[in-house]
């Protein structure tokens, strides 16, 4: 199975003349896109912030790694199991924490992510501890990762554009009003959280099959923060925005290798700039549409002028007012 995929992958990449380095970049891009899509559903569409999604990536990665190495499970089933197991843990965690008010959820997620990391470092017998888990079969070929990404985007898109996505969005917009039209906010928040964890687990499982060797510390708090900032940069409430965000965040550091050490600094800077000039992100609350894009290109001079006016503050957009009041 793996051989089959890597042979096709070899054929495809030699046809398009994609070298190994570029394949690696594309694979990392795919992994990031999948994890960020999950984050996007959670943060962009439900307005829940999780600083623990690297923990779910870790769970997905280790589950898939152990299943393929120790139990010789077919990698596709191992990836599915990793993703579902991460989702299952999120379901349990969400059942406990999502009944609490907003901030507690955020803090427990943060704690959870760190717990997973410490636990996997500690469980030397099963995970290899901080020495890492080696020998994972290289199942994450470029072709396979691209297929996964397309599938992940397709599912997320259909999910968001059905009643499920609408219900999540209504919670983001006004939880009390959502309840008043019969939406069980707790249940849908948990669904959103589970969805994001399944995607994180999926991404983690692919990550394991790409690096063939994983350590618990790759899935630390910084990774969780990176997922959130990427979602914010891409734009809240937009799946296409999240894809762009993930591509930018993967490709830019590669393009500016020399600056790689300043990655977190640059993320911070990007987030501050975006919050200042474009509070809803690159594609906030809008999906990319080819038609609009072409129109935009045609009207480029005019749009550039508008954009400049917005940056210089001559044409201020209204910021969203917070939700308060108890009736």
């Amino acid at each position, binding site marked *: 199975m793996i051989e089959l995929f890597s042979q096709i992958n070899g054929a495809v990449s030699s046809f398009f003349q994609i070298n190994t380095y570029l394949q690696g970049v594309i694979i990392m891009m795919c992994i990031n896109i999948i994890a960020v899509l999950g984050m996007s559903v959670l943060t962009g569409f439900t307005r829940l912030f999780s600083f623990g999604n690297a923990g779910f990536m870790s769970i997905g990665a280790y589950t898939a790694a152990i299943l393929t190495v120790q139990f010789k499970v077919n990698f596709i089933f191992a990836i599915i199991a990793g993703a579902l197991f991460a989702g299952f843990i999120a379901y349990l965690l969400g059942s406990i924490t999502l009944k609490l008010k907003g901030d507690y959820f955020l803090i427990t997620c943060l704690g959870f992510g760190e717990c997973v990391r410490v636990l996997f470092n500690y469980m030397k017998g099963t995970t290899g501890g901080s020495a890492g888990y080696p020998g994972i079969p290289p199942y994450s070929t470029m072709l396979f990762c691209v297929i996964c990404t397309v599938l992940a985007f397709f599912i997320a898109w259909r999910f968001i554009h*059905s009643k499920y996505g609408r219900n999540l969005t*209504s919670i983001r917009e006004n939880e009390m009003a959502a309840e*008043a039209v019969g939406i069980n906010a707790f249940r849908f928040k948990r669904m959103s959280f589970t969805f994001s964890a399944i995607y994180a687990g999926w991404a983690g499982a692919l990550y394991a099959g790409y690096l063939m060797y994983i350590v618990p510390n790759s899935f630390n708090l910084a990774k969780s923060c990176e997922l959130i900032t990427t979602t914010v940069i891409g734009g809240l409430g937009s799946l296409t925005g999240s894809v762009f965000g993930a591509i930018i965040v993967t490709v830019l550091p590669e393009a500016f290798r020399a600056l790689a050490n300043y990655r977190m600094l640059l993320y911070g800077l990007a987030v501050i700039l975006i919050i200042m000039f474009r509070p809803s992100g690159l594609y906030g609350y809008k999906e990319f549409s080819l038609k609009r894009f072409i129109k935009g290109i045609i009207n480029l001079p005019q749009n550039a002028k508008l954009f400049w006016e917005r940056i210089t503050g001559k044409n201020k957009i209204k910021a969203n007012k917070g939700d308060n009041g108890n009736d």
Partner: protein
Amino acid sequence: MTNTNSPVLEMQNVDKHFGGVHAINDFSVKIERGKIHGLIGPNGAGKTTIFNNITGIYAPDSGKIFFMENDITKTTPHKVAQLGIGRTFQNIRLFSNLSVVDNVIIASNMDAKYNMPQAIFKTAKYKKLEAYLREEAMDLLGFVGLSDKANERASSLPYGHQRKLEIARAMALKPKLLLLDEPAAGMNAEESLDLVQFVKEIKSHFDITILMIEHHMDVVTNLCDHCTVLNFGKTIAVGTPAEIKSNPEVIKAYLGGDE
């Protein structure tokens, strides 16, 4: 299923405290099917708190609440809505960043009877249901006169239209009881006359029972079959609008208050 004489909503001796504030004091009411019942009283009298107790945002400290003979005293907000009580909020609560039509479609989520795989594969059933929900939402928007605004952002609507949209959204639940919290707030005399007409149309068109909080006495007189007057959580008068207006207690409460 329910006998026609039984009240749609019945509250028995409901009490609610917030710390030292006795927000509702021994409140009882019976609302018959097809009636419009008014809830009036000065600021802070406890009117909104009564709505919040009915809809499960708060649970009463003591007392019972029945909706069509079901005990809903401790029921959660979404369950109350699912049972058939729609409401609007005193300070409008729309899904502001969403389109007008989506605001209404979201409220019909209980009629969207498809599951996740059907949504992901866009089966025939899914497409049919979604098309039907959209059509129904457009009908409702047509009814409240917002068809041409369907694709605008809810927050971009003028105030009066936002109020109407909020009512349309509540109606998309197909409720049997509609709770309106100061629907005429911030409206001038002409606009509130419009509103009276609008509420009458809704009532006859949808065959619904209404409990409304209202400050404007002319709106109350024009619409309500019965009223309850509250002051500091206590019921000070019950009766038809005409009876209420001549009640000395009521006159005193209003003159003493800031109305």
